[in-house]
């Protein structure tokens, strides 16, 4: 196929930037900060341009992994360094490479202390995130999956808000607790199947009784990461305390790890257990959608409100994933992608006023439309995209998920749909309180509208949101073949084993 190691390049190019920052940049603090920003922006920007190669060269007619690379790494325990993308992962790679330069740009003036370390953390984070999506070896996947915690811990802990230490620890320990169980499951898989190669494992028929345990172990990890109710409590804390760019990456990419994991591993590898646990997933997801939407309604902190809305949106993702219908799964992926853009944009929007006023309280603001018309416009676009207005990316995802859910279980669809209504309620309520009304507060009188750097950050996100809403085929084409293949595979496996006999599980 393609001998050019594009995926390794995409993964490790940011590390080159890190080395560059560490070795080359010298001088006093101001100079170092300036150059570190520039290097980080150039590296991640170039990486994004490089990732466009995937966009143009990706073959949308096959479900097979593409751009595959494979080198023996620790052969005695079956580890190889293997990378490749298919329709499920390719757009996530692009999402990551797009959001990283945006994050760096958004921190341009907001971060003033330890700029060098900040930029290094973000570049390392990009390496781990891209690596996670393209890994084709289970242990390599796990390494990237968990390594993300290191830069994220540092980003929240060093540059976060008042309760940053608590939030950083909670994030780290919650997700670590989930992941270590997955590690054991990965080792058990190795002894069962004799390989760590994801391509082969996707076809391996695991015994149903074993599937249950493996599924649960993977679930422990992905449910925390995505996050599902009731293990979601780390997310609002992490979001509130993280610096703006940290929230963006958290909402934009890290939350997708869980959804990606379900699609990549839980469904195809443990089809019988998936079938068995679907009611559990539905229940938890609906709880998440309704409960967290209600919680969001009561929030006084903008970031916290968006964090809770993220959990609700991720509830849609899990519902869609486990419907095992084409629409449901495509909707889930689409929802993740559009949420990656919209939620990131919303956090950036909060960041804009936070940079000016240093407050995230909704009550601090009011009547901003009089001083910041451009800001209000952009806020409105993303607010409506988050609500799921037709014409924005958010609509397509939610609609497809509900369509898929309705085919399987109309109650699930009906209950999930209430989340859409509640979503409109809390988002519009927040928007009204911040933007509309009279500009009465003394300290808001001098607030300035978006500057050109901020416009540059939001422009691509707006274009993408509208593009995703108006012409979804250009994205769905990437996804479609892989999703159909995934469903065929799962259904064939379920048919072959005749469903999971519950009696065998207890033994």
């Amino acid at each position: 196929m393609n001998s050019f190691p594009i995926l390794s390049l995409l993964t490790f190019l940011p590390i080159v930037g890190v080395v560059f920052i560490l070795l080359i940049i010298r001088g006093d603090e101001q100079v170092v900060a300036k150059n570190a920003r520039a290097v980080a922006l150039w590296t991640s920007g170039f990486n994004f341009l490089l990732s466009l190669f995937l966009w143009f060269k990706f073959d949308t007619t096959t479900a097979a992994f593409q751009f595959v690379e494979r080198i023996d790494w620790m052969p005695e325990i079956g580890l190889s360094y293997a990378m490749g993308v298919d329709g499920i992962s390719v757009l996530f790679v692009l999402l990551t490479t797009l959001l990283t330069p945006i994050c760096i740009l958004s921190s341009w003036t907001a971060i003033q202390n330890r700029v060098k370390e900040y930029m290094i953390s973000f570049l390392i984070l990009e390496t781990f995130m891209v690596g996670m999506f393209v890994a084709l070896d289970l242990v390599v996947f796990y390494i990237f999956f968990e390594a993300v915690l290191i830069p994220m811990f540092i980003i929240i802990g060093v540059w976060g808000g008042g309760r940053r230490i608590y939030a950083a620890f909670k994030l780290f320990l919650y997700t670590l607790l989930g992941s270590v169980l997955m590690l054991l499951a990965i080792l058990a898989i190795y002894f069962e199947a004799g390989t760590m190669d994801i391509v082969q494992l996707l076809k391996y028929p695991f015994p149903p009784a074993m599937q249950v345990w493996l599924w649960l172990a993977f679930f422990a990890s992905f449910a925390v990461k995505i996050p599902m109710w009731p293990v979601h409590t780390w997310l609002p804390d992490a979001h509130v305390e993280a610096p703006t760019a940290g929230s963006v990456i958290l909402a934009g990419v890290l939350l997708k790890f869980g959804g990606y994991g379900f699609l990549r591993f839980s469904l195809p590898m443990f089809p019988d257990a998936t079938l068995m646990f679907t009611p559990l997933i539905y229940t938890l997801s609906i709880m998440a959608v309704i409960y967290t939407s209600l919680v969001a309604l009561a929030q006084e902190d903008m970031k916290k409100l968006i964090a809770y809305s993220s959990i609700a949106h991720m509830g849609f993702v899990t519902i869609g994933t486990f419907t095992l219908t084409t629409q449901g799964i495509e909707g889930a992926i689409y929802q993740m992608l559009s949420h990656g853009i919209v939620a990131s944009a919303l956090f950036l929007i909060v960041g804009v006023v936070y940079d000016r006023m240093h407050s995230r309280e909704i009550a601090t603001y009011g009547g901003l439309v009089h001083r910041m018309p451009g800001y209000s416009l952009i806020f409105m676009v993303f607010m409506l995209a988050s609500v799921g207005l037709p014409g924005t990316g958010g609509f397509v995802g939610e609609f497809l998920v509900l369509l898929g859910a309705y085919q399987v279980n109309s109650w699930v669809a009906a209950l999930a749909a209430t989340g859409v209504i509640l979503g409109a309620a809390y988002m519009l309520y927040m928007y009204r309180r911040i933007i509309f009304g009279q500009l009465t507060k003394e300290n808001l009188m001098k607030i300035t509208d978006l500057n050109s750097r901020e416009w540059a950050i939001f422009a691509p996100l707006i274009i993408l949101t509208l593009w995703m809403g108006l012409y979804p085929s250009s994205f769905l084409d990437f996804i479609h073949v892989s999703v159909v293949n995934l469903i065929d595979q799962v259904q064939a496996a379920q048919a072959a084993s005749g469903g999971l006999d519950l009696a065998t599980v207890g033994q």
Partner: protein
Amino acid sequence: MAVMPNLLPALPELFLTLVILSLLMFGAFQNTDSDNGQQQTQTVVSWLSVLALGLTLLLMVVFSGTRTVTFSGMFISDSFAVYSKALVLGGSALAIIISQDFIVRERMSRFEYPVLILLATLGMMLMLSANNLMSLYLGLEMQSLSLYIIAAFKRDDQRSAEAGLKYFVLGAVASGLLLYGSSLVYGFTGTTDFTVLAEIFANSGAEGPSTGLIFGIVFILAGLAFKVSAVPFHMWTPDVYEGAPTPVTAFFAVAPKIAALGLFMRVMVGPFSSMIEQWQQIVILVAVLSMIVGAFAAINQRNIKRMMAYSSIGHAGYALIGLAAGTSDGIRGVLIYLSIYLFMTIGTFACILVMRRGDRMVEGIDDLAGLSKTHPLIALCLSVFMFSMAGIPPLAGFFGKLYVFLAAIEAELYGLAVIGVLTSVVGAYYYLRIIRIMYFEEATDPLDNNISSLLTSVITVMAAIIVLFFVLPQPIVNNAAIAAAALFPG
């Protein structure tokens, strides 16, 4: 007529013995009346010791061949011995190197210090080559007696003296247990030779080994567990680690621990291999307890050396998981774990040695506050060690755990593995605490800035090894696999 035994397998040990004797003479005949003279002698002897350890390692690797038994079956040389001795030699050499700055500043610069470390190392090498309960005991005692003295080496310091005495008393009890167990085994089998013991146990028939024999094994196990500071025989560890001078603690945490675990493995999968059903449950229990105590007791420590003591108890627990598996893969896991543990621990203690304020050692965890601003490189390296000890990929510590847990899953010890990963999450909490203090808090009273370049380079090299382990794991992994296979002949 007495036949000359084959000396070749023991050549490295013989070489080291000669070096020790000559260094002792050399030191004794130097002018040590003045502080300056003492210091010079110490420096020369120290570097000669490091050189000698390196040469011993070289000799060992060059002359390592197939499995050979000599001295009437008392002494064995195989790849397992070579691998674990290499770790011990490396650990001792690094311990001497990182001591240099400290012992000069703390006025304990005496040439006996490196010589005693060499003596202890020799004892460890004999332990690792023991093929008989007698030679096992001799090696162990030679090591222990030297260690007791080193623990109390700072004679005018009350805590150091206390550490030495405590170590001696409790160590003597453990040696007694071991000796008692050995005598029971001898009484019930009539031999102390490992090879013969293995045959006797393998042919013990349907009724299995007698109760007295099992008692003997339990006593031996208890004695060994004491030496690796596994729970419930760990009580001495925090006090000794805290009281002993810091470079001595670094040495204690590395070389004797590796040697004792090596011995543990040799005894358990050697002579007692066919009694795995009897000892496996004990080892599992000891491993579980060590991991739990290591994780939970460390949380509230304020002294970093004490915290490291509990951390080392926890690490012993993880290493014992591999032993509990009782397979070649398990032993490989332990050896890989110990190799990585060596680098992490030496690196961490080198960082602790940096902690000085107003030219005095400080040991509080809170003293690290704001280290990332005042000493960015040291802070970065120490966080690498901490993340690695917590087992976060892609750092080396993760791979150590990976191999150990792999063996546990293979041996179907699922419960043990689950407890292992859960305690590693608890452990992560206190490792993260160090990082938090260094990175998230501001320095109130910064540490001294005159760090010896020797320490800095050791720290940097160790951190580089930990970070880059994944690039080239083969040297450690493959050799560990060969070494582990040597314990399972046929």
